[in-house]
């Protein structure tokens, strides 16, 4: 049996935990959920672990970044994250992530679906699985919301209703969720009543389950437009104190929106912050993006703490892969899927600690290697989802949320 251990802050380094068999029957039967919601900040492009949160390597690997202390002894970060440095007591740093994909589209696909991309099927994203498994009749908001410009979030072979509801821009909110400005309420009502009569008439001779699905989805869309929870999408409604925690950058506002949605019970919110693919001029380009993450994530952690939501919300910071330990002649770093870094916060995670290592030369994940599928299994397990549950694709092939990934339960206290 392989021993898995935590690397605690300095004084506790080397102390090991008992091995936990993540694939036991107990896990298969699920557990009492410790997390209600997930906020997944996805850093597409590939975050450089050696210029952010993995400082436990040779000095040469860190290159031009400077190491600074955090508010936890023994947890150090790069100088690009001064604000987060004061919040590291809320975060668990995982330095031993490993993926089998080294190109962006495939890497992102693997991270978000747990499967390798194939040309015969599209797998559902984690958010679609979570939404499908946890949605109940009482929910007035969709349980998979994606914030940001990237591709929204696929339902894969699940029906389209499980795809992400996209919010491309926090100032405009959900596209077309409001009536056209020129159409007054009474006029809109009039239009709907004409539509009702036309559809009712058409249904008599031509009604099928497909035409009725449309009628139902119009009803659902109207319910959504008129939902009292819809104001969650309007950041102007946030109270001054919470709003004041955030700066005006779009990523920070996206984090605020994610916090608001989780407060309303949305199960999975993906916030995408792209642009990390610095093959050249890394140290010229990184600071601005790192600044966004530093501010936005810090404010979000404070927001969730203030609202007492951090205990029930698992905050995940992930990326498709990391960067090479060596800086290339163009002063950039190339792709490196073996030993990259992700962060977790909330929902009882062992915060203020570092889990897993890379070798000192930064070439490969060393202790407590965490495969992408295990990472996703851990998230789902914390939500109380049965990892053994299978869903069949249209051609009858069975798939699981995290493939054969196993939950790493020892990440939680």
């Amino acid at each position, binding site marked *: 049996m392989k021993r898995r251990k935590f690397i605690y802050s300095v004084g506790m380094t080397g102390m090991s935990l008992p091995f936990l068999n993540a694939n036991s029957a107990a896990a298969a039967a699920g557990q009492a959920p410790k997390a209600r919601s997930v906020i997944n900040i996805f850093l597409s492009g590939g975050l450089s672990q050696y210029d952010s949160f993995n400082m436990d390597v040779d000095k040469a690997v860190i290159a031009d970044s400077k190491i600074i202390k955090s508010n936890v002894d023994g947890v150090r970060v790069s100088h690009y994250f001064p604000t987060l440095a004061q919040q590291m007591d809320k975060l668990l740093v995982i330095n031993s992530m490993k993926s089998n994909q080294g*190109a*962006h*589209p*495939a890497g992102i696909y693997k991270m978000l679906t747990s499967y390798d991309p*194939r*040309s*015969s*099927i*599209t797998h559902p994203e984690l958010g679609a699985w979570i939404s499908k498994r946890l949605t109940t009749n009482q929910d007035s908001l*969709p349980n998979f919301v994606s914030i940001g410009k990237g591709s929204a979030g696929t339902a894969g072979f699940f*029906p*389209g*209703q499980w*795809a992400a*509801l996209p919010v491309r821009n926090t100032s405009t909110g*959900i*596209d*077309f*969720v409001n*009536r*056209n400005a*020129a*159409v007054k309420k009474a*006029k809109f009502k*009039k*239009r709907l009543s*004409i*539509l009702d*009569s*036309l*559809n009712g*008439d*058409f*249904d008599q*001779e*031509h*009604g*099928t*389950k*497909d*035409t009725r*699905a*449309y*009628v*139902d*989805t*119009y009803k*659902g*869309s109207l319910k*959504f*437009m008129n939902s009292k929870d819809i104001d969650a999408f309007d950041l102007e409604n946030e109270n001054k104190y919470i709003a004041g925690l955030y700066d005006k950058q779009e990523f920070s506002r996206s984090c605020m929106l994610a916090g608001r949605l989780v407060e309303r019970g949305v199960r999975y919110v993906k916030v995408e912050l792209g642009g990390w693919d610095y*093959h*050249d*001029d890394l140290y010229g380009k990184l600071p601005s993006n790192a600044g966004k993450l530093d501010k936005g994530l810090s404010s979000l952690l404070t927001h969730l703490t203030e609202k007492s939501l951090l205990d029930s919300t698992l905050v995940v910071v992930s990326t498709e892969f990391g960067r090479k330990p060596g800086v290339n*002649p*163009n002063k*950039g770093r190339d792709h490196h899927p073996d030993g990259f870094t992700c962060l977790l916060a909330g929902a009882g995670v062992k915060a203020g600690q570092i889990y897993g290592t890379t070798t000192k030369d930064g070439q490969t994940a060393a202790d407590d290697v965490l495969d992408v599928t295990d990472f996703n299994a851990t998230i789902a397990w914390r939500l109380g989802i049965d990892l053994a549950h299978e869903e069949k694709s249209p*051609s*009858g*092939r069975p798939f699981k949320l995290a493939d054969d990934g196993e939950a790493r339960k020892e990440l939680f206290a």
Partner: protein
Amino acid sequence: MNDGKRTIIACLLTLALSPILTSAAFAQPAAILEHAQQIDQLVARQLKQVGQERRPGIDDYTFCRRVYLDAVGRIPTIDELDNFIADQQADKRSRLICKLLSSKGYSSHWYNYWADLFRVKYVGDKLHHPGNYSEWIKEALRSNKPYDQMAHELINASGPLYKPGNGATGFYAREPMPLDHLANSVKTFLGLSIECAQCHDHPFDDWTQKDFYKLAAFSSKTHLRVDPTPDLEKKKYARDRKILKNKSFDEWIVYRESLRVKHAAIYGNGTGFMRLPHDYQYEDGKPFDAMEADVLFGKMPKLDHKLTKANIDALRKNNFGPQINSRESLADWMVSAENPMFTKSVVNRLWRQVMGTELVGPLGGLTQDAMGDHPELTQQLIAIMKATDYDLKNFLSVLFNSKTYQSKSLALNADAPDYLLDGPIVRRISAEVIVDSFLSLKTETPDRYVATEFRWDGFTHFYDQSQEMGVKDFVKYSTNGPGRGAFQNRVENQARKRNGAVGPKHLWRVSSYGKADRGHDVAMLLGKSDRDLIDGANAEPNIPQILYLMNGDLEHEITTHPKAYLHRKLDGAIRPDKRMEIIWKAILGRLPKESEKPLFSNDQDDLIWALLNSNEFRFIR
């Protein structure tokens, strides 16, 4: 019947003057109507056997809307509808079919179909620019290339990816892995799902993993290479590549990408041998055993083997023997008229496109012996496809001319009688057809800007130029050239200029949108295929889609836009009943019913909004 025959001959005469149609399409008009009759007779016989009534025929309004949607992918404009209704000739339906199948709208609509099936899209990491591939499909539509020939060229394509006219190579380049490519080819052209057998014996079908590997032997050692061959690289390009890499990342990228346009190619034409995978688990073979090519069923083509299986077994395990052009034999077998699946699969597909439901079974999940609920009809359609020499326009013409097609559509619900493949079913129109139908309301010329007229040839043009370019020229191009990221834009902008006026974007058919995969947000919302998977489109409602239809741009583009074609038609009409008639004809393709007349009193824009949002608009009836 005689009238009908004259019709198509008359149509043929007009077409002779048109440069678009040079193929033998419509050369046997009598045969087309005869084939349509054969379908109708079989359907009638089947109905009689079970004592079910024949469905009533449809009126001219319903026919006109339906055939526009199915043949050219949009609703008729109000003028087109009026002209058809006003036509007093008995053969007007046949003539309309003929006209539509010869129009630009046909190319636009069916481009969407084939580009989806063949999954034309960017594959970012490997810089597969789909322009040349897309151009190949457009050319096939322009020349009405027979379907079996299309399939053969796609399966057997090799050589440079961006060489003008060689775009069929895009089909192979579409897949990163050869075995996936084989499974997808079989699904595309034979309608069989054999992908499970890549890794294990098929759980509920006949195919074993060994069968799969024997089939894969035909195309073994075929591969896409985007960079120059190692030889060429070493001799010519490597030195400067290294210098550029250390000098400037941007210049290095332009060097790499511009070289790829010249050198990307499909290599290899098959060795006729394959080896079992390293983890082969069955008793009938060992890992790395040599497998001689064999077909899944039917007649095995003769291969020109230079070595025997024993010879190959004696070689190192990554050696599959010399190339013997066995991939061409695979193509021959796949598209052969004797291949029981090839023709069955395509008639199954086209029947579904036109009638809304499968003739034989799931498009990509047929079984070898499946013949559908009406085997004689399937048999007959296979015979018709063969008799028309896989001419797609002729085959569609047969379907459209049949009484079966021109009968009342059936709503498949609990109250429906048994469905006996006796006509179309009520179904939602595709995403592209919905969006293109909006065009028929915005402009009187909705087919003006279609994909098939636009030559997306930036890369092929650069390929031509690059034939004269030596290593120094590539270095110069990379150093003084467009810069990283702009390389592709530059060649595409040049292509755009060569194309001349392409019109305002809001008047393009969906097929014209450049990148084709992510090109049209509204179409994506409505379920357009992203072309990752075969048959990846869907017709389902979802909340963002409905929000768009209720509150989106349509308000400004059609519902209240004074310059929209619909409103210009309304300008002259004063009486409310006349206005209502125009709106109903333009959007629903019919006159208002007596029972709908109380709606007269509503505001015009409210009526337009309601009709655009109605099920009747987005379903074919």
